[in-house]
């Protein structure tokens, strides 16, 4: 099981990702550098997502990212 929140906390360098209802993009947590780091980290875990083909709105929450990972796996 990939701990998405833990990866997010590391790439965004902020525990605010654990907050209820956090919007990663609105809050500025997932800025362009964190974005690159996130996809790098997911690749390290064997998840090869195509960021330019993903609707940005799907990256707003940790749950959204977990959903993307689940879809990749199927």
């Amino acid at each position, binding site marked *: 099981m990939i701990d998405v929140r833990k990866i997010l906390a590391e790439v965004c360098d902020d525990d605010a990702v654990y907050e209820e209802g956090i919007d990663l993009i609105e809050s500025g947590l997932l800025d362009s550098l964190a974005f690159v780091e996130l996809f790098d980290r997911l690749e390290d875990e064997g998840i090869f997502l195509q960021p*330019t083909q993903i609707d940005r709105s799907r990256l707003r929450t940790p749950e959204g990212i977990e959903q993307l990972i689940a879809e990749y796996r199927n």
Partner: protein
Amino acid sequence: MPDTITKRMEAAAKANRDRIAYKCGEHAITYGTLWDEACRCAACIRRQGTSPVVLFQDKRCETVIAMVACLLAGRAYVPVDVKTPAKRVARILAMTGAELVLTDREIDLQRGTVCTLAELACLSENEPSQPEWELDENRIAYMIFTSGSTGEPKGVPITAANLANFADWIAGLSPLCDYKNCNVLNQASFAFDLSVADIYYALGNGHTLVTNEADMRTEYDRIFEVFAKERINVAVMTPTCMKMCLLNDAFTAENFPEFQCVYFCGERLEKKTVERLFRHFPKLAVINAYGPTEATSAVSAVTITSEMLAAEEVLPVGCMATAATEIAIEDGEIVLRGKSVFGGYLGGVCGGHFTENGTNGYRTGDYGEIRDGKLYCGGRKDGQIKYMGYRIELADIESNLLAVAGVEDCAVTVSGNAEGAVSAIRAFVVCEPGGPDEACVRAALAVRVPAYMVPKKISVVAELPVNDNGKIDRKALRQYD
């Protein structure tokens, strides 16, 4: 009479009159038109005065014509990014004493002319003509403003001789010297001297310079679009920008067979980035360049090979044999001397510059080493960082935070990744009782400094931890999270 840099540009223009010199989005201009317009405008610019000329425009063709026209007119141009907050623009105007601002925006100028280049030039319907006046090699060609630790931007004046030296150096750099008729990508703002590399490599050698107005921090797909549409052969960019392009699996040698070379400068190039780049483009020529603004964009470069990736822990930033200027290591610091080095900051501001037997020198503040004929760059001696390619003095941010009403004290730190690149800037702020909250501090800072200098996270804290010497304990600040 043309001088070295204008002679180079004239030769390129005359040999390539019908080739597109510059393209931004849907707008393009040939070498013939660029040169003729620049010559025509040079006379009006010269008649208007002698002060530096501030260019406060986006990347339209007019901006490039203005740069060349200023070179021909013998007046320094000062490119200022349109996203710069008004307060900072006002400081730059005051510091340069600029009496001509070429812009399409509202600007407050005490004395002088604010207009577009077209408006200035329509006063003169003359035929384009070569400048009949003398052009002094030691005149200031351009001035770039960089982050200053006092909170005031620092003006770096670069002479025509400095610029000619750089232009000759990059024209002769392998493999760039072998290319003909290329599409060269500009990514950096004209207010950053990474752009000096693409502008003078392209326009000094008959290539086509291509750009768009994408904001690299938020519109990373747009750079990729330019690659796709314009069939880029040579890209000049920061490593961060390349990381963004590499997010796209379609960015490969198969889809972009004409992409032959990338020239990186402006921030540390991580091995990881080159490894990834080689997976997408196995035969790409990768140049890693190094140099401070104070030494005209870059002073050294080296081609990165897969052998180097295997052999080196940290990538070199230059090959000593092909350096643009004299490079030495003194007390572990990279010190530069010679033709690329500036003559000192605007206003005589201190720091780094020195002269020795009539030669200009500059102590970069970068730790470095020379091994096997290659230059390596370590960390900084001071609080200067590179964030997404932008050069920032942490004290610049701190000074501007302290200027916010209600802020009593602050400390700015960075978080980094394993290879030493900065991933985010953080600020810790102590406010007076009833003072501003985080959102207010952020908003107040944003009108003072460019957006990339506003820390990703600002925390209002009760006090800053202090160590035994009474100095802010930056390590302890990390525990605040």
